[in-house]
């Protein structure tokens, strides 16, 4: 009998696979492979240097592509002269917007007779106007990279400079330059309304009001955007590209004016995605050039090009006003969010929706008003980045909780415990939390794991901080998400999975192999998976929204179970046993009652084949879904489930330099069920460092639309010498929507570390920094200001931090911020 059944359903089981000490094998389950820290199947090829990424692929006669990009943030294109470039020997194609069959796509969502909805414009190449520095204007394909680059420099574009706007608050004002002609700069507005906000504040004994700010951030994956396209048999435009979404084949087909079945996208192993390869990157370009030249075309972005022109994480201005009673209970929350969408909408509205819904955090608040705006500017466009709008608001709400605790003289853990939502309660927009909310446990466990407090010494002040988050996994319900997986068993008993997933390093493919191996009772090494090919694998959907494990994992589980059913039914006939009493173990069918009775799986397979029984199954998994009648006010269920977790952090702040050294990080998450605990730890450890960079050193500095951090020398991600001791504690409630009760952890693992660090800095030196990153200088200035707050004092170095902040915006916010010195800290 397959024993996993009892653990699959929702339950209150809270077993602890504490991975800090040797794992307790088999303590909780009878699984053979699920729940085991097995090596990933892709690890071998990668470590031997045999894995071929998108850039490692070449075809005979291949051309090299280069993109010509705008150097203006806002300008009219008066003329483009490609004649000289075209004549350069070796150049095979020079394309501009007029050469693109469908250059512009307008996606509309949520529009109805009463609702405005929002629109997202995608342009392959700029036509009449350029909207940001780096916008693609022309494409070149040539026989060598060098020739292509020379040709790009020979393209003559006449620009007429136009007014530009770089500050989202200014862009919201009447009279601001329109980024997109004929359209408001405000792409959309979302709101959450609960109760009566004024009543809520009148009930409060204490009110804390602050404005927070988070910057543009780069994904900085080690593999830049790249791909090869060619015209295959029957004229099929085939792309092999580093992407998180092979489903873009439809858009590519539309752009080329071809039927969808004439475009094929293959995703090999991707060298990091993090949301940066969720939108179309090089696909349109290589497809167009291959289509026009009828030759293979390769395009690889340099690091500088990648930083210049691919999407960034949304900067936000977050205005938070929270009210609470003296005993710590929250009474009211008012939030205004403004995100900088950059020059094109891309996924900005969706990121905003996530943020607006998540703005309250995991807290019980009777009166809530959240207004979120996403605004076009002439900066680089912003889109998905690990967390998708959740880390930004988490920084704000978790800082606010600590500020509240300080003003009430309460312990930060205690104030959170009082206010955490529990299972059965609802979020401000009405969604009831149907599964276990593990936050009290994660908070307690994380904080306790910090251990005994070490006293501060001299100028190095120690401090501790805690922060929690709830992050959705799986896509929004009204998107009607589905996934497909095809599982088959071969004549020799080996197993094949075909699933169109994109593996970006999170072990997406590997988990499916574990599931199939478990259900079909074969060793992991006997499972082969084919991934990411729109022609040859069933579509499993994008690798985004931390959805792959629950969606494709469930589809694979369903498919494997059907194959298992067929095998066991036949085995039952052959062994004259009830199939319900049989199990598949180690390539054999065994009778549970009488383990001596066994049958080789190959014999069962052959018997099935002889009768023409299907030895495969294609399963479709449908996520829970709903329809929306309107979109602007967020109401009801938006997500299927959430992952809950906490970060506890210990820091040392150098009073003389402002340097924040993170000494220890404890990440405690309820992961539902760890299909592969080692993989889950890896996500949590990696997520913690991804978030650490966000907290301390990462910022794409943009001034007047110009990126001042063009390479990895200026854009600083953590190195091996910047990491703290990281300890991960995995809790397993079994309450996830994924296979065996698994939850997703890829994005949730980033959420709360930045505010945990900021809270720890407050604990250490009593200063509150409300803008990320917590650079040395920012911290130093805040320390200086705290020690001698008189203006003109020698040590009071002026509190403006990074260069080039817009004075006009500061004036705008003066009326809304409670404490004017907050402004200057920006």
């Amino acid at each position, binding site marked *: 009998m397959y024993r996993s059944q009892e653990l699959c359903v929702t339950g209150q089981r809270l077993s602890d696979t504490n991975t800090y000490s040797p794992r307790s094998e088999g303590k909780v389950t009878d699984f053979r492979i699920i729940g085991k820290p097995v090596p990933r199947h892709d690890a071998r090829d990668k470590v031997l240097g045999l894995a071929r990424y998108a850039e490692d692929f070449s075809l005979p006669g291949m051309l090299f592509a280069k993109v010509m990009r705008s150097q203006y943030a806002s300008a009219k294109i008066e003329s483009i002269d490609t004649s000289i470039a075209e004549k350069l020997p070796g150049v095979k194609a020079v394309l501009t917007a007029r050469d693109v069959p469908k250059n512009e796509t307008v996606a509309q969502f949520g529009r109805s007779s009463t609702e405005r909805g929002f629109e997202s414009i995608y342009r392959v190449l700029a036509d009449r106007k350029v909207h940001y520095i780096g916008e693609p204007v022309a494409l070149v394909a040539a026989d060598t990279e060098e020739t292509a680059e020379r040709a790009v420099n020979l393209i003559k574009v006449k620009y007429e400079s136009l007014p530009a706007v770089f500050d989202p608050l200014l862009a919201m004002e009447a009279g601001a330059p329109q980024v997109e002609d004929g359209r408001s700069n405000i792409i959309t507005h979302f709101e959450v309304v609960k109760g009566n906000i004024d009543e809520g504040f009148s009930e409060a004994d204490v009110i804390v009001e602050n404005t927070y700010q988070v910057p543009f951030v780069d994904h900085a994956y080690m593999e830049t955007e790249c791909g090869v396209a060619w015209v295959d048999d029957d004229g099929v435009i085939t792309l092999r590209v580093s992407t998180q979404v092979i489903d873009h084949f439809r858009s590519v087909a539309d752009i080329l004016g071809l039927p969808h079945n004439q475009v094929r996208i293959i995703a090999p192993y991707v060298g990091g995605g993090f949301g940066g390869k969720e939108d179309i990157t090089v696909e349109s370009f290589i497809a167009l050039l291959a289509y026009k030249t009828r030759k293979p075309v390769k395009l690889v972005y340099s690091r500088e090009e990648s930083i210049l022109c691919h999407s960034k994480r949304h900067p936000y201005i977050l205005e938070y006003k929270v009210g609470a009673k003296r005993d710590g209970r929250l009474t009211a929350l008012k939030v205004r969010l403004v995100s900088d969408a950059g020059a094109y909408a891309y996924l900005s509205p969706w990121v905003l929706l996530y943020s607006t819904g998540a703005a309250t955090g995991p807290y019980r608040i009777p009166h809530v008003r959240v207004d979120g705006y996403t605004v076009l500017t002439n900066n680089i466009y912003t889109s998905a980045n690990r967390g998708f709008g959740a880390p930004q608001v988490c920084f704000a709400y978790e800082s606010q909780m600590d500020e509240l605790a300080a003003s009430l003289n309460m312990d930060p853990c205690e104030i959170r415990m009082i206010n955490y939502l529990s299972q059965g309660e609802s979020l401000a927009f009405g969604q009831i939390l149907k599964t276990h909310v593990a936050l009290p446990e994660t908070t307690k466990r994380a904080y306790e794991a910090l251990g005994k407090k070490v006293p501060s010494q001299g100028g190095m002040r120690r401090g501790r901080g805690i922060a929690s988050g709830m992050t959705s996994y799986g896509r929004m319900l009204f998107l009607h998400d589905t996934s497909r997986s095809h599982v088959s068993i071969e004549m020799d008993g080996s197993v094949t999975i075909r699933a169109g997933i994109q593996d970006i390093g999170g072990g997406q493919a590997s988990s499916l192999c574990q599931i199939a191996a478990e259900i079909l009772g074969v060793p992991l090494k006997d499972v082969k998976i084919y991934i990411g090919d729109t022609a040859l694998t069933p579509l499993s959907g994008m690798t985004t929204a931390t959805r792959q494990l629950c969606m494709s994992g469930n589809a694979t589980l369903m498919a494997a179970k059907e194959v298992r059913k067929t095998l066991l039914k036949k085995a039952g006939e052959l062994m004259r046993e009830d199939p319900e009493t049989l199990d598949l173990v180690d390539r054999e069918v065994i009778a549970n009652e009488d383990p001596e009775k066994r049958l080789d799986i190959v014999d069962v397979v052959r018997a099935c084949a002889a009768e023409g029984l299907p030895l495969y199954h294609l399963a479709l998994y449908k996520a829970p879904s709903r329809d929306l009648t309107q979109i602007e006010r967020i109401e009801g269920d938006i997500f299927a489930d959430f992952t809950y977790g906490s970060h506890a952090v210990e820091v040392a702040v150098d009073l*003389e*330099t402002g340097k924040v050294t993170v000494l220890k990080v404890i990440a405690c998450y309820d992961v539902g069920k760890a299909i592969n605990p080692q993989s889950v730890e890896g996500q949590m450890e990696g997520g913690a460092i991804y978030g650490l960079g966000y907290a301390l*050193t990462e910022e794409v*500095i943009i001034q007047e639309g110009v990126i*001042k*951090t063009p390479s990895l*020398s*200026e854009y*600083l991600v*953590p*190195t*091996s*010498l*910047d990491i703290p001791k990281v300890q991960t504690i995995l809790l397993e409630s079994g309450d996830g929507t994924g296979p065996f009760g698994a939850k997703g952890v890829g994005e949730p693992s980033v959420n709360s570390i930045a505010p945990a660090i900021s809270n720890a800095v407050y604990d250490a030196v009593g200063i509150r920094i409300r803008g990320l990153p917590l*650079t*040395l*200088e920012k911290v*130093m*200035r805040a320390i200086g200001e705290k020690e001698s707050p008189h203006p003109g004092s020698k040590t009071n*170095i*002026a509190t403006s931090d*990074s*260069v080039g902040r817009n004075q006009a915006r500061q004036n705008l916010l003066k009326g809304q911020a409670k404490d004017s010195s907050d402004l200057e800290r920006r």
Partner: protein
Amino acid sequence: MEYFRPKNFNESLRYLGKLKSKATLIAGGPIVIPDIRAKILTPNALVDISYVKDISYVKEEKKTIRVGGLTTISELASSNIIEKCAPVLSEAAREFGNPLVRNRATMGGNLADASPAADTATPLLVLGGMVVVEKHGAKSRQIPIEQFFVGPNRTVLKPGEVIREIIFPKPGRYARMAYTKFGLRNAMAISVVSLAVLVEIEDRACNKARIGFGAVAPRPIRAYRTEEMLTGNEVTRELIAECCEMVKKEISPISDIRASAEYREWMASVLLKGLLQQIFKEK
């Protein structure tokens, strides 16, 4: 582009003399190759001296240390002679760039590049380094390190001139020295401020003091007035504090994306205090 691989130092000088401004010298590559990639440099010819063995050495003589221009940073970092006689230079070498680039970057290359934050420059400033430069058909020049840098990425090197070696006197037995580099992260960080200090202590007084800074002026500099304050005096807590104030007047940092001028000024004095306290620990 043409490529020449001279067999020895004199041959490399001859090539440069012949090719004149059409040629770019390449040693380890960390400067030249990225510049070619970024189209800052478009040479007609490359003269590759990375195979020239006769200027790759660390030699200890009776009163001086001589380091060949082609000595790599990692060779500097692991040299017993440098560790023994001039640990301030070993320390700088260990903090340079990243572990991989240290195996290619050379001392001569680092100096010739003349970044205001050049890692080997600040130790050489306090060691009293002399840059020995040669050119085909001309006399060898010895340029004190203080006069070697003119501005950001500019030196007194004339076309065709190549750094043969750097020499400095062996610090005396009363010498104490220290180095620190401060950046925005713990590895692979371009300096916000770098500092080297060398003092000679006899009894409780400071006989000689040399203070060298990087990244706080258009070129690596010495803080002469601050040095004067220390020289000949007993070093007390108060004197250190005064030095930290004086040093702010001697530097001229800029504001850039890494740090503001103010912060650099602040850090220069904080780091100086730290190093002086470290050196004069017993005070």
